[in-house]
Protein backbone atom coordinates (compact mmCIF):
# COMPACT_ATOMS: atom_id res chain seq x y z
CA UNK A 1 0.00 0.00 0.00
CA UNK A 2 1.46 3.31 -1.01
CA UNK A 3 1.20 5.98 1.64
CA UNK A 4 -0.51 9.10 0.35
CA UNK A 5 1.77 12.05 0.05
CA UNK A 6 0.62 14.90 2.22
CA UNK A 7 1.25 17.54 -0.42
CA UNK A 8 1.58 16.94 -4.13
CA UNK A 9 1.96 19.76 -6.61
CA UNK A 10 2.51 18.89 -10.27
CA UNK A 11 3.53 21.50 -12.84
CA UNK A 12 1.41 24.16 -11.23
CA UNK A 13 1.03 27.48 -12.97
CA UNK A 14 -0.59 30.61 -11.59
CA UNK A 15 -0.43 33.91 -13.41
CA UNK A 16 -0.98 37.38 -12.00
CA UNK A 17 -0.55 40.74 -13.61
CA UNK A 18 3.05 41.25 -12.52
CA UNK A 19 4.07 37.80 -11.45
CA UNK A 20 3.72 34.22 -12.62
CA UNK A 21 4.33 31.04 -10.73
CA UNK A 22 5.60 28.65 -13.35
CA UNK A 23 5.86 24.86 -13.50
CA UNK A 24 6.05 24.27 -9.76
CA UNK A 25 6.26 20.69 -8.56
CA UNK A 26 6.55 19.77 -4.90
CA UNK A 27 6.16 16.67 -2.73
CA UNK A 28 5.77 16.32 1.01
CA UNK A 29 5.77 12.84 2.54
CA UNK A 30 4.12 12.03 5.87
CA UNK A 31 6.55 12.26 8.77
CA UNK A 32 8.59 14.95 7.04
CA UNK A 33 9.16 18.60 7.63
CA UNK A 34 9.93 20.73 4.62
CA UNK A 35 11.49 24.15 4.73
CA UNK A 36 10.30 26.42 1.94
CA UNK A 37 12.87 29.13 1.26
CA UNK A 38 12.96 31.95 -1.23
CA UNK A 39 13.55 35.67 -1.57
CA UNK A 40 10.66 38.08 -1.01
CA UNK A 41 8.23 37.93 -3.90
CA UNK A 42 9.51 34.52 -5.02
CA UNK A 43 6.07 32.97 -4.81
CA UNK A 44 6.11 31.26 -1.42
CA UNK A 45 2.84 32.74 -0.22
CA UNK A 46 1.24 32.13 -3.61
CA UNK A 47 2.31 28.49 -3.49
CA UNK A 48 0.99 28.15 0.04
CA UNK A 49 -2.33 29.70 -0.96
CA UNK A 50 -2.57 27.19 -3.78
CA UNK A 51 -2.00 24.41 -1.24
CA UNK A 52 -4.71 25.72 1.07
CA UNK A 53 -7.32 26.24 -1.63
CA UNK A 54 -7.35 30.01 -1.50
CA UNK A 55 -6.19 30.14 -5.11
CA UNK A 56 -7.05 27.98 -8.10
CA UNK A 57 -4.16 26.97 -10.38
CA UNK A 58 -4.28 28.01 -14.02
CA UNK A 59 -2.60 24.74 -14.93
CA UNK A 60 -1.31 21.69 -13.12
CA UNK A 61 -2.55 19.73 -10.13
CA UNK A 62 -2.59 20.33 -6.41
CA UNK A 63 -3.43 17.49 -4.06
CA UNK A 64 -3.29 17.84 -0.30
CA UNK A 65 -3.79 14.80 1.97
CA UNK A 66 -4.98 13.06 -1.16
CA UNK A 67 -7.71 15.63 -1.86
CA UNK A 68 -7.79 17.70 -5.03
CA UNK A 69 -7.46 21.37 -4.25
CA UNK A 70 -9.24 23.74 -4.31
CA UNK A 71 -12.34 21.66 -4.99
CA UNK A 72 -12.16 19.36 -1.97
CA UNK A 73 -10.77 21.97 0.39
CA UNK A 74 -13.65 21.84 2.88
CA UNK A 75 -12.81 18.20 3.61
CA UNK A 76 -9.04 18.58 3.37
CA UNK A 77 -8.98 21.48 5.81
CA UNK A 78 -10.47 19.34 8.57
CA UNK A 79 -6.99 17.92 8.96
CA UNK A 80 -4.83 20.88 7.96
CA UNK A 81 -3.59 23.54 10.31
CA UNK A 82 -2.81 26.68 8.34
CA UNK A 83 -1.02 29.57 10.00
CA UNK A 84 0.21 32.68 8.25
CA UNK A 85 2.12 35.48 9.92
CA UNK A 86 -0.31 38.04 8.51
CA UNK A 87 -3.37 36.13 9.64
CA UNK A 88 -5.53 37.80 12.26
CA UNK A 89 -8.29 36.63 14.58
CA UNK A 90 -11.62 38.29 15.43
CA UNK A 91 -10.76 41.55 17.14
CA UNK A 92 -13.52 41.83 19.69
CA UNK A 93 -13.21 38.37 21.13
CA UNK A 94 -10.80 36.91 23.65
CA UNK A 95 -8.16 34.23 23.27
CA UNK A 96 -10.38 31.95 25.33
CA UNK A 97 -13.38 32.63 23.08
CA UNK A 98 -11.29 31.58 20.10
CA UNK A 99 -10.24 28.41 21.88
CA UNK A 100 -13.87 27.49 22.54
CA UNK A 101 -14.76 28.41 18.96
CA UNK A 102 -12.07 26.18 17.43
CA UNK A 103 -12.67 23.39 19.95
CA UNK A 104 -16.31 23.18 18.89
CA UNK A 105 -15.35 22.81 15.24
CA UNK A 106 -12.65 20.15 15.46
CA UNK A 107 -13.05 16.80 17.19
CA UNK A 108 -9.27 16.49 17.52
CA UNK A 109 -9.00 19.44 19.92
CA UNK A 110 -6.91 18.61 22.98
CA UNK A 111 -7.84 20.93 25.86
CA UNK A 112 -4.90 19.91 28.08
CA UNK A 113 -2.42 20.47 25.31
CA UNK A 114 -4.08 23.80 24.52
CA UNK A 115 -3.69 24.93 28.12
CA UNK A 116 -0.05 23.84 28.14
CA UNK A 117 0.58 25.80 24.94
CA UNK A 118 -1.08 28.92 26.33
CA UNK A 119 1.33 28.75 29.23
CA UNK A 120 4.37 27.94 27.12
CA UNK A 121 3.63 30.70 24.64
CA UNK A 122 3.00 33.17 27.42
CA UNK A 123 -0.57 34.01 26.43
CA UNK A 124 -3.53 35.07 28.55
CA UNK A 125 -6.89 33.41 28.00
CA UNK A 126 -9.02 36.39 29.01
CA UNK A 127 -7.14 38.88 26.88
CA UNK A 128 -8.92 40.46 23.94
CA UNK A 129 -7.29 39.61 20.66
CA UNK A 130 -7.25 43.25 19.58
CA UNK A 131 -4.79 43.98 22.37
CA UNK A 132 -2.23 41.43 21.22
CA UNK A 133 1.09 42.38 19.68
CA UNK A 134 1.77 40.87 16.29
CA UNK A 135 4.07 38.26 17.81
CA UNK A 136 1.43 37.28 20.38
CA UNK A 137 -1.09 37.08 17.58
CA UNK A 138 1.01 34.59 15.66
CA UNK A 139 1.56 32.55 18.80
CA UNK A 140 -2.18 32.47 19.43
CA UNK A 141 -2.99 31.33 15.92
CA UNK A 142 -0.25 28.70 16.22
CA UNK A 143 -1.66 27.52 19.54
CA UNK A 144 -5.12 27.19 18.00
CA UNK A 145 -3.71 25.18 15.11
CA UNK A 146 -1.40 22.95 17.17
CA UNK A 147 -3.99 22.07 19.82
CA UNK A 148 -6.17 20.45 17.15
CA UNK A 149 -3.33 18.04 16.35
CA UNK A 150 -3.88 18.25 12.58
CA UNK A 151 -2.12 15.74 10.35
CA UNK A 152 -0.61 18.47 8.20
CA UNK A 153 0.62 21.88 9.25
CA UNK A 154 1.19 24.54 6.61
CA UNK A 155 2.95 27.54 8.07
CA UNK A 156 3.80 30.78 6.30
CA UNK A 157 6.60 32.50 8.25
CA UNK A 158 5.56 31.09 11.64
CA UNK A 159 8.46 32.58 13.57
CA UNK A 160 8.73 36.01 11.99
CA UNK A 161 8.55 38.72 14.60
CA UNK A 162 9.05 36.32 17.48
CA UNK A 163 11.69 36.85 20.15
CA UNK A 164 14.32 34.11 20.52
CA UNK A 165 12.58 32.48 23.46
CA UNK A 166 9.26 32.30 21.63
CA UNK A 167 11.01 31.01 18.52
CA UNK A 168 12.61 28.25 20.54
CA UNK A 169 9.25 27.30 22.04
CA UNK A 170 7.61 27.20 18.62
CA UNK A 171 10.38 25.10 17.08
CA UNK A 172 10.18 22.71 20.01
CA UNK A 173 6.44 22.29 19.48
CA UNK A 174 6.94 21.74 15.76
CA UNK A 175 9.56 19.06 16.36
CA UNK A 176 7.18 17.50 18.87
CA UNK A 177 4.60 17.14 16.10
CA UNK A 178 7.07 15.02 14.16
CA UNK A 179 7.28 12.40 16.91
CA UNK A 180 4.30 11.06 15.01
CA UNK A 181 5.43 9.68 11.66
CA UNK A 182 1.95 10.20 10.19
CA UNK A 183 2.10 13.95 10.60
CA UNK A 184 4.03 16.45 8.51
CA UNK A 185 4.87 20.12 8.30
CA UNK A 186 5.59 22.55 5.50
CA UNK A 187 6.88 25.91 6.61
CA UNK A 188 8.25 28.92 4.81
CA UNK A 189 10.83 31.02 6.54
CA UNK A 190 13.56 33.58 6.05
CA UNK A 191 15.31 32.21 9.10
CA UNK A 192 17.76 29.90 7.35
CA UNK A 193 19.37 28.91 10.65
CA UNK A 194 16.11 27.40 11.89
CA UNK A 195 15.35 25.88 8.49
CA UNK A 196 18.79 24.29 8.42
CA UNK A 197 18.30 22.82 11.86
CA UNK A 198 14.88 21.23 11.75
CA UNK A 199 14.03 20.58 8.08
CA UNK A 200 14.21 17.13 6.54
CA UNK A 201 13.74 18.49 3.05
CA UNK A 202 14.33 21.95 1.67
CA UNK A 203 12.80 23.59 -1.37
CA UNK A 204 14.27 26.74 -2.85
CA UNK A 205 12.07 28.97 -4.96
CA UNK A 206 12.94 32.17 -6.83
CA UNK A 207 10.92 34.46 -9.13
CA UNK A 208 8.08 32.02 -9.49
CA UNK A 209 10.20 29.00 -10.33
CA UNK A 210 11.53 26.02 -8.46
CA UNK A 211 15.28 26.33 -7.99
CA UNK A 212 16.06 23.16 -6.09
CA UNK A 213 14.34 20.63 -3.86
CA UNK A 214 16.27 18.01 -1.92
CA UNK A 215 17.05 16.37 1.40
CA UNK A 216 18.72 18.82 3.72
CA UNK A 217 21.67 16.56 4.40
CA UNK A 218 22.24 16.24 0.64
CA UNK A 219 22.44 20.00 0.31
CA UNK A 220 24.90 20.22 3.18
CA UNK A 221 27.04 17.42 1.79
CA UNK A 222 27.13 18.47 -1.85
CA UNK A 223 27.92 22.16 -1.52
CA UNK A 224 31.43 23.36 -0.71
CA UNK A 225 33.61 26.40 -1.05
CA UNK A 226 37.10 25.44 -2.08
CA UNK A 227 39.91 27.91 -1.65
CA UNK A 228 42.86 27.44 -3.95
CA UNK A 229 46.18 29.09 -4.43
CA UNK A 230 47.07 28.94 -8.08
CA UNK A 231 50.53 30.19 -8.96
CA UNK A 232 50.70 32.79 -11.72
CA UNK A 233 50.77 31.31 -15.18
CA UNK A 234 48.91 28.11 -14.25
CA UNK A 235 45.38 27.70 -15.49
CA UNK A 236 42.92 25.60 -13.64
CA UNK A 237 41.39 22.68 -15.53
CA UNK A 238 37.81 23.01 -16.65
CA UNK A 239 35.59 21.74 -13.90
CA UNK A 240 32.07 20.43 -14.07
CA UNK A 241 29.46 21.40 -11.46
CA UNK A 242 31.04 24.72 -10.78
CA UNK A 243 28.51 27.19 -9.44
CA UNK A 244 30.91 30.07 -9.19
CA UNK A 245 34.55 30.91 -9.46
CA UNK A 246 36.04 34.07 -7.98
CA UNK A 247 39.67 34.98 -8.52
CA UNK A 248 41.70 37.45 -6.50
CA UNK A 249 45.20 37.27 -7.93
CA UNK A 250 46.54 33.85 -7.06
CA UNK A 251 43.69 33.09 -4.73
CA UNK A 252 40.70 31.44 -6.28
CA UNK A 253 37.47 30.51 -4.52
CA UNK A 254 35.34 27.87 -6.17
CA UNK A 255 31.80 27.06 -5.22
CA UNK A 256 30.57 23.61 -6.18
CA UNK A 257 27.26 21.83 -5.73
CA UNK A 258 28.65 18.32 -6.40
CA UNK A 259 31.44 17.99 -3.93
CA UNK A 260 33.40 14.76 -3.72
CA UNK A 261 36.79 13.66 -2.46
CA UNK A 262 37.73 13.02 -6.09
CA UNK A 263 37.28 16.69 -6.83
CA UNK A 264 39.79 17.64 -4.14
CA UNK A 265 42.20 15.00 -5.40
CA UNK A 266 41.76 16.33 -8.91
CA UNK A 267 42.59 19.85 -7.82
CA UNK A 268 45.61 18.54 -5.98
CA UNK A 269 48.07 20.70 -4.14
CA UNK A 270 46.52 23.99 -5.11
CA UNK A 271 43.77 23.37 -2.55
CA UNK A 272 44.26 25.41 0.60
CA UNK A 273 40.97 24.95 2.35
CA UNK A 274 37.64 23.28 1.87
CA UNK A 275 34.69 24.82 3.70
CA UNK A 276 31.23 23.46 4.23
CA UNK A 277 28.52 26.01 3.51
CA UNK A 278 25.67 27.12 5.73
CA UNK A 279 22.19 26.79 4.31
CA UNK A 280 22.07 30.53 3.91
CA UNK A 281 25.22 30.51 1.81
CA UNK A 282 23.89 27.59 -0.24
CA UNK A 283 20.61 29.40 -0.74
CA UNK A 284 22.20 32.64 -1.97
CA UNK A 285 24.69 30.84 -4.23
CA UNK A 286 21.96 28.59 -5.62
CA UNK A 287 19.60 31.44 -6.42
CA UNK A 288 22.35 33.57 -8.03
CA UNK A 289 23.46 30.61 -10.12
CA UNK A 290 19.91 29.95 -11.21
CA UNK A 291 19.28 33.53 -12.20
CA UNK A 292 22.47 33.54 -14.25
CA UNK A 293 21.49 30.32 -15.95
CA UNK A 294 18.14 31.83 -16.90
CA UNK A 295 19.87 34.94 -18.16
CA UNK A 296 18.26 37.29 -15.66
Amino acid at each position, binding site marked *: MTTTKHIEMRNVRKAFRFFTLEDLSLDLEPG*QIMGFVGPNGAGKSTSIRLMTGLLTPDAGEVRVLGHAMPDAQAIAKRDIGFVSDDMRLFGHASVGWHMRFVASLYPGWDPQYAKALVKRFNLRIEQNVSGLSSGEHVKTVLMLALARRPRLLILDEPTSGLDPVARHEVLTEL*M*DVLRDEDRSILFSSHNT*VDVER*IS*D*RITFIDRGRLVDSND*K*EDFLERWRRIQLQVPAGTTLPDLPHLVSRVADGQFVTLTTNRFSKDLVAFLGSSVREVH*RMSLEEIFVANVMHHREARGE
Partner: protein
Amino acid sequence: MYSGINISQTDPRPMYLQIMEQIRARIAAGDWAAGKELPSIRALAAALNVSVITVKRAYLDLESGGVIVTRHGKGSFVADVNGLAGELKAEELDEHLAAAAGIGRLLGLTPDELAQRLRRATRTLDRK
Protein backbone atom coordinates in the same frame (compact mmCIF):
# COMPACT_ATOMS: atom_id res chain seq x y z
CA MET B 1 17.64 12.15 29.60
CA TYR B 2 19.23 13.70 26.56
CA SER B 3 19.60 17.10 28.12
CA GLY B 4 23.36 16.73 28.07
CA ILE B 5 23.51 16.28 24.32
CA ASN B 6 23.92 19.65 22.73
CA ILE B 7 23.87 20.44 19.04
CA SER B 8 25.43 23.74 18.19
CA GLN B 9 24.89 25.44 14.88
CA THR B 10 27.85 27.70 15.41
CA ASP B 11 30.07 24.64 15.61
CA PRO B 12 31.71 24.17 12.18
CA ARG B 13 31.21 20.42 12.41
CA PRO B 14 28.00 19.13 10.81
CA MET B 15 25.12 18.34 13.16
CA TYR B 16 25.10 14.62 12.45
CA LEU B 17 28.77 14.39 13.42
CA GLN B 18 28.15 16.23 16.67
CA ILE B 19 25.42 13.75 17.54
CA MET B 20 27.65 10.82 16.69
CA GLU B 21 30.51 12.17 18.76
CA GLN B 22 28.42 12.80 21.80
CA ILE B 23 26.90 9.34 21.63
CA ARG B 24 30.34 7.79 21.17
CA ALA B 25 31.64 9.77 24.13
CA ARG B 26 28.91 8.45 26.37
CA ILE B 27 29.59 4.89 25.27
CA ALA B 28 33.32 5.34 25.69
CA ALA B 29 32.83 6.72 29.19
CA GLY B 30 30.59 3.82 30.10
CA ASP B 31 27.51 6.00 30.75
CA TRP B 32 25.71 4.20 27.98
CA ALA B 33 26.41 0.57 28.65
CA ALA B 34 26.53 -2.25 26.15
CA GLY B 35 23.05 -3.38 25.16
CA LYS B 36 21.38 -0.17 26.32
CA GLU B 37 18.53 0.94 24.12
CA LEU B 38 19.01 4.22 22.31
CA PRO B 39 16.13 6.67 22.04
CA SER B 40 14.10 6.26 18.87
CA ILE B 41 15.19 8.47 16.01
CA ARG B 42 12.07 10.61 16.22
CA ALA B 43 12.23 10.91 19.99
CA LEU B 44 15.85 12.06 19.91
CA ALA B 45 15.11 14.45 17.04
CA ALA B 46 12.29 16.04 19.01
CA ALA B 47 14.40 16.19 22.18
CA LEU B 48 17.30 17.91 20.40
CA ASN B 49 15.20 20.10 18.09
CA VAL B 50 17.10 18.62 15.17
CA SER B 51 15.65 17.19 11.97
CA VAL B 52 14.81 13.50 11.86
CA ILE B 53 16.96 13.06 8.78
CA THR B 54 20.04 14.24 10.66
CA VAL B 55 19.50 11.85 13.56
CA LYS B 56 18.81 9.08 11.07
CA ARG B 57 22.12 9.75 9.37
CA ALA B 58 23.96 9.74 12.68
CA TYR B 59 22.41 6.39 13.64
CA LEU B 60 23.20 4.89 10.23
CA ASP B 61 26.82 5.96 10.44
CA LEU B 62 27.10 4.68 14.01
CA GLU B 63 25.70 1.40 12.88
CA SER B 64 28.05 1.02 9.95
CA GLY B 65 30.85 1.79 12.38
CA GLY B 66 29.72 -1.07 14.58
CA VAL B 67 29.02 1.23 17.51
CA ILE B 68 25.29 0.58 17.62
CA VAL B 69 23.04 -2.17 16.35
CA THR B 70 19.58 -1.59 14.92
CA ARG B 71 16.98 -4.32 15.16
CA HIS B 72 14.23 -3.73 12.65
CA GLY B 73 11.03 -2.84 14.44
CA LYS B 74 12.67 -2.99 17.86
CA GLY B 75 15.01 -0.04 18.01
CA SER B 76 18.70 0.71 18.25
CA PHE B 77 21.06 -0.56 20.94
CA VAL B 78 24.61 0.08 22.01
CA ALA B 79 26.66 -2.68 20.41
CA ASP B 80 27.41 -5.47 22.82
CA VAL B 81 31.02 -5.84 21.85
CA ASN B 82 33.78 -6.42 24.31
CA GLY B 83 36.08 -3.51 24.60
CA LEU B 84 33.83 -1.28 22.52
CA ALA B 85 34.46 1.56 24.93
CA GLY B 86 38.17 1.08 24.56
CA GLU B 87 37.85 0.77 20.81
CA LEU B 88 36.06 4.08 20.61
CA LYS B 89 38.61 5.79 22.76
CA ALA B 90 41.33 4.41 20.48
CA GLU B 91 39.47 5.77 17.47
CA GLU B 92 39.33 9.16 19.14
CA LEU B 93 43.09 9.04 19.70
CA ASP B 94 43.72 8.23 16.07
CA GLU B 95 41.65 11.20 14.99
CA HIS B 96 43.66 13.52 17.22
CA LEU B 97 46.93 12.06 15.96
CA ALA B 98 45.88 12.52 12.35
CA ALA B 99 45.14 16.17 13.05
CA ALA B 100 48.50 16.57 14.77
CA ALA B 101 50.25 14.95 11.80
CA GLY B 102 48.57 17.44 9.50
CA ILE B 103 49.72 20.40 11.53
CA GLY B 104 53.17 18.87 11.82
CA ARG B 105 53.42 18.70 8.05
CA LEU B 106 52.40 22.35 7.76
CA LEU B 107 55.17 23.25 10.22
CA GLY B 108 57.55 21.09 8.25
CA LEU B 109 58.32 18.69 11.12
CA THR B 110 59.79 15.25 10.50
CA PRO B 111 58.03 12.25 12.04
CA ASP B 112 60.81 12.08 14.67
CA GLU B 113 60.38 15.73 15.61
CA LEU B 114 56.63 15.08 15.87
CA ALA B 115 57.25 12.04 18.12
CA GLN B 116 59.53 14.18 20.30
CA ARG B 117 56.79 16.70 20.84
CA LEU B 118 54.40 13.89 21.75
CA ARG B 119 56.86 12.57 24.36
CA ARG B 120 57.20 16.07 25.79
CA ALA B 121 53.43 16.34 26.07
CA THR B 122 53.24 12.99 27.91
CA ARG B 123 55.94 14.13 30.37
CA THR B 124 54.02 17.36 31.04
CA LEU B 125 50.93 15.27 31.78
CA ASP B 126 52.87 13.01 34.17
CA ARG B 127 54.19 16.01 36.08
CA LYS B 128 50.68 17.34 36.78
